[in-house]
C-alpha cells in the first residue's frame, strides 16, 4: 500500500484523488488465527500493530463490535503526558511518550503529536511541595519536569488568572514540556492502517458473544456475530466494556467499575491557549485543538454508568472551573459535549496481564488515562501475549495486586473507584 507523503499527496491530487486506497482492508474473518484481539480501539489496534512489528506475529485478527476507534480513543481530551509519581507508573508512561515521539513516522500516519507541554497548577505551598515530590520522582526516572513559580506560570499561560486575590491563587505549577496532545482519531486510524499493512485482519461490525473453551477450560477462540473464530491466544482490550466481555468468558467479578466521564469542546477560535493546563483546586484540564476548539473535561459523574451521557451538575462545575481559570472565556460557547465509559479500577492504575484464564490476556482498567497510554499499552500487551509473560514495564499491572495489596495508588484514594 502506498506510503503517505507530501509527494503521494501531490501525485494523487494531480490525478483527481482517485488513486487513494482504503486505509485498511475491510477483512472478513478467517476460521482461525494465532492471536485474536477483542476490541478495535486504540489499545487493541496498537497491540495488533506491535504484535506484527515487534514479534513477527501477523496472523492476527482485531475484532470490533462497531467501527474502528469508536470507543474511548475517539472520545477523550487527547492529553499525552508521563508526569506520574510512582515507579510502577512513571516508567510505563514515559515509554509511552517515547513511542509517541516517533509514532507519526513509525506509522507513516500523522497523529499530530504536539509537544506543547502539560502544566499542572498548584494553589498552596503544600501543593507545590507535592508537585516537587512528583517532579523530582520524574527527574530521577529520566523524565523531564519543571517546577514553575507564579510568574513563570503567568508568562507561560497569558490568559490565566494568576492574581493573588483569587480564591485559589496560583502558587506555581509542574510543567512537563514533552507532554501535549495528539489527534485522537488519527491514532486509531494510524494503528489500524499500520497493522493492516503488516497483514493483520481488522474486522469491524463483529461482536464477541462468547468464548470457546477446551476441556481444561482454556480459551481457544471466540463466538462472534460473524461466526466462530479460533485462536491460540485471545487478548481482550475493551475498556469501558471489560466487565461485559469478561462475563462472557465466565469471569463475573473484576476490580473495575464502569463510570461515565464527560468531555467538552467549544466553538473553534483563533489560537488562544498554547498548552495543556490543569487546575489544582478542583479537577479540570483544558487545551485547544488544532481546529481551534477548547477541549476540556473534569471529574467523572461519579456513579456506575454504561450510558455515554452525563448530567448537568458536572457540566456546570466544569464550566465554572474553566472560567475561574480563564475569566475571558465567558462569552465563548460550548459546542458539544459527550460521555465516555471509563474502566475505573480500584487503585486508579491499569491492568495488562496474562490470564485470568489460560489462553486469555487482559488489558483493562485505564480510568481516565487510557489515551496517553495507547502506544505503550499496545506495546506491552503485545509483549505479554507473545511471550506469555509481562514486560518489566507492565509487570506491576497485575490483576491480583489488589488482593495482595500491591496496589499502585497515585492519589492515595483507596479502593473507591470513583475517587481515582
Amino acid at each position, binding site marked *: 500500500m502506498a506510503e*503517505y*507523503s*507530501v509527494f503521494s*499527496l501531490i501525485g494523487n*491530487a494531480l490525478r*483527481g*484523488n*482517485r488513486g*487513494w486506497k*482504503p486505509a485498511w482492508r475491510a477483512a472478513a474473518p478467517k476460521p482461525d488465527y494465532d492471536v485474536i484481539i477483542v476490541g478495535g480501539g486504540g489499545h487493541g489496534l496498537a497491540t495488533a500493530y506491535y504484535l506484527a512489528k515487534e514479534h513477527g506475529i501477523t496472523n492476527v485478527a482485531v475484532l470490533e463490535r462497531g*467501527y474502528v476507534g469508536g470507543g474511548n480513543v475517539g472520545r477523550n481530551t487527547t492529553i499525552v503526558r508521563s508526569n506520574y509519581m510512582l*515507579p510502577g507508573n512513571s516508567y510505563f508512561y514515559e515509554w509511552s511518550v517515547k513511542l509517541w515521539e516517533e509514532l507519526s513516522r513509525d506509522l*507513516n*500516519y*500523522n497523529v499530530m503529536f504536539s509537544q506543547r507541554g502539560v502544566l499542572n497548577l498548584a494553589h498552596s505551598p*503544600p501543593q507545590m511541595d507535592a508537585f*516537587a515530590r512528583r517532579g*523530582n*520522582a520524574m*527527574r*530521577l526516572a529520566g523524565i523531564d519536569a519543571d517546577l514553575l513559580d507564579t510568574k513563570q506560570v503567568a508568562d507561560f499561560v497569558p*490568559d490565566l488568572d494568576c492574581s493573588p486575590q483569587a*480564591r*485559589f491563587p496560583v502558587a506555581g505549577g509542574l510543567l512537563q514540556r514533552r507532554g501535549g496532545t495528539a489527534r485522537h482519531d*488519527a491514532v486509531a486510524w494510524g494503528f489500524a492502517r499500520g497493522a493492516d499493512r503488516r497483514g493483520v485482519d481488522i474486522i469491524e461490525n463483529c461482536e464477541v458473544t462468547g468464548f470457546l473453551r477446551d476441556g481444561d477450560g482454556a480459551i481457544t477462540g471466540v463466538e462472534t456475530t460473524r461466526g466462530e473464530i479460533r485462536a491460540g491466544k485471545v487478548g481482550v482490550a475493551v475498556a469501558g466494556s471489560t466487565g461485559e466481555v469478561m462475563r462472557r468468558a465466565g469471569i463475573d467479578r473484576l476490580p473495575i467499575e464502569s463510570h461515565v466521564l464527560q468531555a467538552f469542546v*467549544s*466553538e*473553534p*477560535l*483563533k*489560537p*488562544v491557549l498554547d498548552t495543556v493546563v490543569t487546575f489544582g*483546586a478542583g479537577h479540570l484540564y483544558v487545551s485547544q485543538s*488544532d481546529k481551534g476548539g477548547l477541549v476540556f473535561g473534569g471529574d467523572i459523574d461519579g456513579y456506575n454508568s454504561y450510558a*455515554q451521557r452525563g*448530567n*448537568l451538575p458536572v*457540566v*456546570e462545575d466544569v464550566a*465554572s*472551573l*474553566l*472560567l*475561574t481559570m480563564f*475569566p*475571558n*472565556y465567558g*462569552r*465563548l*460557547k*460550548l*459546542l*458539544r*459535549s459527550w460521555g465516555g465509559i471509563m474502566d475505573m479500577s480500584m487503585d486508579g492504575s491499569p491492568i495488562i496481564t496474562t490470564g485470568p484464564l489460560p489462553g486469555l490476556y487482559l488489558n483493562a482498567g485505564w480510568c481516565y488515562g487510557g489515551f496517553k497510554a495507547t502506544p505503550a499499552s499496545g506495546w506491552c500487551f503485545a509483549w505479554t501475549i507473545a511471550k506469555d509473560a509481562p514486560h518489566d514495564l507492565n509487570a506491576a499491572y497485575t490483576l491480583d*495486586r489488589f488482593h495482595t*495489596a500491591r496496589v499502585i495508588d497515585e*492519589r*492515595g484514594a*483507596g*479502593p473507591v473507584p470513583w475517587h481515582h
Partner: protein
Amino acid sequence: MSGYRLKTGGSLIDRDAPVSFTFDGKPVSGLQGDTVASALLASGHRTLARSFKYHRRRGIVSCGTEESNALITIGEGGRAEPNARATTAELYTGLVATSQNRWPSLNFDVMSVNGLLSPFFGAGFYYKTFMGPTRGAWHFYEHFIRRAAGMGAASKQADPDRYEKTTLFCDVLIVGAGAAGLSAALAAARSGARVILADENAAPGGWLQAETRKIDDMPASDWAKSSAATLDASENVRVLPRTTVYGYYDQNQLGAIERVTDHLLVKPGHLPRHRHLTIRATSVVLATGAFEQPLLHDGNDRPGGMLAGAVLRYALSYGVAAGGRVAFSGTHDGIWETALACAEAGIGVAAVADTRRDPPADLVAACEKFGIKARARAAIVRADGPGHVHAVEIAEVSRDGRVMNGIEKVNADICATSSGWMPAVHLHSQAGSRPGYDEERGIFLPGTPREDWIAAGSCNGTFGLSAAIAEGATAGREAVKAAGFRRPRAALPVVEADREASEPMHLRIVESPRGTKAKIFVDQQHDVTASDVKLAHREGFRSVEHLKRYTTLGMATDQGKTSNVAGLSLMAKLRDQNIADVGTTTFRAPYAPVALGALGGREPGAHIRPLRKTPMHDWHAENGAEMMPAGAWMRPRAYFKAGETLEQAYVREARMVRQSVGIVDVSTLGKIDVQGPDAATFLNRVYSNPFAKVPVGKARYGLMLRDDGLLFDDGTSWRLAEDRFLMTTTTANAGPVMQFLEFLLATAWPDLKVHLTSVTDAWAGIAVAGPNSRDVIARITDIDMSNEAFPFMGVREGTVCGNPGMIARLSFSGELAYEVYVPARFGLAAWEGLLAAGRDRDIIPYGMEALGTLRIEKGHVAGAELDGRTTAEDLGLSGMVSKKKDFIGKAMLNRPGLVEDKRLKLVGLKSEDSASIRIGSQLVQTEEAGKPGKSHGHVTSNCYSPALEAYIALALLEDGPERHGETLWAADPVRGGHVKVSVRDPHFFDPDGSRMHV
C-alpha cells in the same frame, strides 16, 4: 443586484424605528426588530464571512439557529462574542459587528489562496504529511495550521457581565412555540397545570412567521402573537422567549439558556446577560420543529445560495428581499409555494425548478401567471459567480441527480433551494432515544421515548399546518394527563385548509455538468465537499462516524443541521445502501452553542468553592498572619513581624512555645459528637486501638484504618459521658470520616444505638502549648488546672473567659499543652482572653509552620505522612494496632504487600549541610546532583528545628527503621537542591515525653 428592503411586509420589524450599527467599522442602518442578518441583507451585504478551511466567501444561508455561514463577532472588548450567528442576533443601536477568519479584510483574504490548493487539501490530507523531516516537525507546521484554522477570536479581557442560574419546576414543559407548541400549550394551560413554554426566538410562531394560510381568520404570525399573549396572561403558564432548551438530561431535567439582555441597547444592571435554567418537568412536549435542507449543486456555497424558506422568511418577517431575482430549486411542492409567496411579497422570482416529473399543475400554472419560468424534472445544477451568485444553470436531472441535458442559464442573484424538511430530533435523541430513518418519507423520526416526552408537529414528521396544530393539542392534553391532571377538552383553532400535497422526491444532491471540477459543498462552514465524502468512501471511512470524523462534516458550529443529511445520503448512495443502514450520528448536548458564562453562573472566581473561615479568621488577618488554604479553610501560616522571613517567623514562634507559651487556632479540626449507649463499642470498632474502656473525663488518641488496612485518619476522642464522645478528626478528613462512620452505622451495624452529629462548626478550638500554658489558662477558667486535678489526657468542662467551654490536656507539640474548646461564637473572646492573660508570659499566637515544626521535632505524623498509601507499621504506630479486638481494617492488615520488605517507612532526617531538607525531595544514595537514579524514599515534612538548631525532616524511606545512621542525599532537582542528610529516629526532641507530663 443585491438585497433590499421591500416596500411592504415585515411582521417583526418597526419601520418607524431605525437602528444604526456598524459592520467592520462601517455604519449600517436597520430597523427595530431586525436581526443583524436581515439588516445586512437589506443593506445589500452579500459576503459576511469566510469559510473555515479555504476561506471562501460566505453569505447568509438561513434565517435561524441552523445558520452555518454567517458567523460574526458581536461586541467589543470583554463583551466581544465570537462566532455569533448573524441570523439570530437581534439588532440594537450601537451594535458592533465584525467579520472574522479573514486577513486583512473580508473582501480580500490572503488565506483564500488555500482554495486554489484544494486538490491537495482534501479530506484528511494532514494525516498524510507534515511528518518530517525531523521528529518534532509537526510542532512547526502546527503553528501555521492553528493560525489559519479557528473562526472568531476570544477576547483577551474578562467578560464583565453577570450570569445567573435558576431551577424551574413545572408539570408540563413545551419546547418550541411554533404551530404545534403553541397548540400544545393552549391545550395544556386549560388543565390548570403549571406550564412552561420555551422558544429560542424573540417572537413566537416559528415557521408560522412564513406561513401564508390563516388561523382563526388571522395571519398565522398574528395568531402566534395573540396565542402567546393569552398564554402569558394565564397564571399557570410561563412563556419564555429567547430561551433555548439545549439539553435533555436524566429524569426529565432539561437545560435551557434564557438570553435576557443580549438584544437590549441599555442593559439594566439588575439583569444578567443570560439565565441558565434547569427545568424539572413532569412531562415534556417536544415541538422542536424541523430544519429545511438544501438541494446541493455545484457552486452552492457562493453568497446568494440560500435555503428557500429563508428567502421567504426574510420577506415576510423583515420585509427584506434577499435579492432582485431569485431562482428556486427543489424536490417538493413547498418550493413552488415558497416561490409563489415570495412573488406575492414583491420579490422578483426568476425561475422554479422541480426535480419531479409531474409537479402539481395548479402550482405550475400559478407560477407561470407571475411570469416565472417553471421547469419540471429539473434542478439548478450550478450557481455561477464570480464571487457571489450572478446566474444559475438549470438542467434536466435524472431521479438520482445526474445531469441529463437542457442546460439553460438564468440570470439570478439568489439561488434558493430546498430538499424538504428534517425533523429536529436533537432533544429526543439526547433523552436516550435513537432516531430512526423512514426510507418512505426520507426523514429521521424520533425514537421510542425513554424519558417522559411526547413529540408533536414537524419534529414528529407531522408537517401540515392543521395536522401539526391538532397533534400539538393532543400532545398538550396527553402531557397534562401524564402529569396527573384531568385531560382538558380539546378546542382547536380554525385553520385554512392545507393543500393536498403531492409526493415529494428524495434527492439531496444534483451533479454538475462540470463533472469532477464541480465544487459541491456539503458542509459549507467546514468546506467539506462531495468530493471529500467520495474520498472518505474510497479510503474506507464509510461508517457514519468515520465519515464525520475523517471529513469533519457536521462538526462545525451548526453541528450539521443542514449538512448531515446530505452527507449521509451521499455516503448511502456510494455504499449502495439505505440511509437507515448507514445510520446517523448521535445528537449530543447542546442543541445549539451555549455561552460558557451561562453554564458557570455566579460560581466562577470567588465562589468556585465554599470558603471556610474560623471564628478567629479576621483576627489572624489583622495581626500579621499570612493565610494559606487548607482544603476549604484558610489557616494562618505564620504571624510575621516586620522584616521577618517565613523561617524567622516560625522559628521564633516555635521557640517561644518551648520557652513559654503560645496559642494556635485548631478550629478547623473535624469534630463529631458521638452519642448513644453503644458509643464506646462503636469507637472501639472504628479505631485500631482500644476505646471500650476510656474513662469518662479522659481523652484518647485513636488511629483509624480503611477497610483495606491502610491508614485513614487519626485524632483524639474525648469521653464526655458514659454515652457520649467528642471525636476529633484531621481537618482534611472531617467530611470523609463522618460519611464513613454514618455508612457503617447504616449498613454494617444498624443494631448499634449511636447517633452522630457533625459539630465542626459549632466549636472554636485553641491549642495552648508551652511550659506556661497551665498558668495562663488558670487565669481564665474556673477549672482546677493543677496536675493532680487535671492529669495528662484529662478532659474538663467549665468556663473559659466566663463562657462555657471544655478543656482537654493534649499535646501535639510535646510541651505541657491543652486544647480549649468554646462555642464558636465565643471563639474570638477566648482567643483574645488567652492573649491578654498571657501577656506577662510573652504569650504569642503561632501558625501552621510552627505547629508543624513542634510536631516534627516530636516525630508526630500528620496528613503528609497519612497519604493514603501508608500503614500503621510504616509510620511506627504498630503499638496502636490492637492484637486482641476486631476493628475496621484488621482483616486486610497482614496481606503480603503490606508487610513485605522495601516498604517506605518513617524516619527522621538531619541535614548535614546546614541546608533545608525541602519537602518533596527524593532520597538517593549518590552525592552527584541532577542524575537519574533510584529513589529510596522522599521527604514528607521539614523544618528548621530551634530545639536541635538544625534543619530536620520526616521522610518515608525504604526499610527506614533499619537504616538509622546511614547517609543519604535529599535530591530536589526541580528546585535545584541536593542536601546531605543523616537518617535517624524521628523522635528528635524529648523522646520520653517528660515535658508534657509536668
